[in-house]
């Protein structure tokens, strides 16, 4: 029997699904970072005085000199679009009519990957100033999705 003689009525493939679940706690710095989003509606970074860098999201250690970081600073809610992409496909693979904009938003020396909204995709440029739009405090759960999206900051006339 060769490959060409394959019984086409036989089961062609065996399908299954692996149950994969995960529970991720954010760690010491992550805990404080997300608590601040939840309770205060603020973004915090940690500053390394030796390297003159401010990490966002906040980290416990400087990734450059490995020293412990204790200087927590409020970095505000605004950042700058570092790069972005337009998604025409949903998570489940179904097509989207209007694209979702996902960007890396530069804040201090770090940044966040998040959605951008309240702007037409063709108007968005790298370098655009954006700011976080938070959920009302009652709805926040201590997740990155407590930030609904980032919206463009319009220059003061």
């Amino acid at each position, binding site marked *: 029997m060769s490959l060409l003689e394959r*019984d086409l009525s*036989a089961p062609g493939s*065996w*399908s299954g699904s692996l149950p994969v679940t*995960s529970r991720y706690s954010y760690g010491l710095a992550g805990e404080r970072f997300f608590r601040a989003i939840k309770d205060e509606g603020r973004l915090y970074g940690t500053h390394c005085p030796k390297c003159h860098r401010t990490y966002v999201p906040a980290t416990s250690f400087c990734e450059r000199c490995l020293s412990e970081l204790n200087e927590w600073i409020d970095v505000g809610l605004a950042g700058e679009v570092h790069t972005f992409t337009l998604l025409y496909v949903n998570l489940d693979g179904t097509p989207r009519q209007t694209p979702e904009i996902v960007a890396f938003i530069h804040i201090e020396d770090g940044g966040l990957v998040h959605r951008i909204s309240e702007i037409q995709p063709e108007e968005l440029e790298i370098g655009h100033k954006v700011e976080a739009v938070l959920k009302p405090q009652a709805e926040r759960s201590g997740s990155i999705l407590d930030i609904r999206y980032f919206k463009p900051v319009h220059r003061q006339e």
Partner: protein
Amino acid sequence: MTSKIKMFPGTPLSEEDFTEGNVLFNVDQMRGDFAWDTGVAIGAYLAALKEGMLLGARCATCRRTVVPPRLVCEWCFRPMVDYVPLQDTGTVNTFSLCYVTWDVQRIKEPEIPAVIEIDGASPLHGIMHKIGEVEPEKVHIGMRVKAVWRPPSDRVGAITDILHFKPIEEV
């Protein structure tokens, strides 16, 4: 070694820390869907199971019949061209009494996975399946068993079309 360490560095978390909301966390479920191509030999094997038959493959050179069937004889690397129907009876080669399920739940009545040498296949050639309809303490190596099939309408072309193997009543 580790028994001497009283305090491990780090921040230990208990189940209560999660349930009582002491820490923030993220729960996720990834989709691990897969489809595995059955290929020629296993495809034929599964199709035969649906018909209520165990299929083997024979290597004429090595004079050996294997189950499940495969395309190439792993002894002489020649193609295995003859597919042969086998009996649905066999002999227990080895077995285990298993008191946990696949997802590590304790069970009172053990599952009895076993390797069963199928009649018609060469000696020491067989498949792994469950043994049922028997007192666990009565299972032994060398026990004669027979397949218990699902009703034809319920068969889908899977190894579970055989529910389990049960002992053959010695007459």
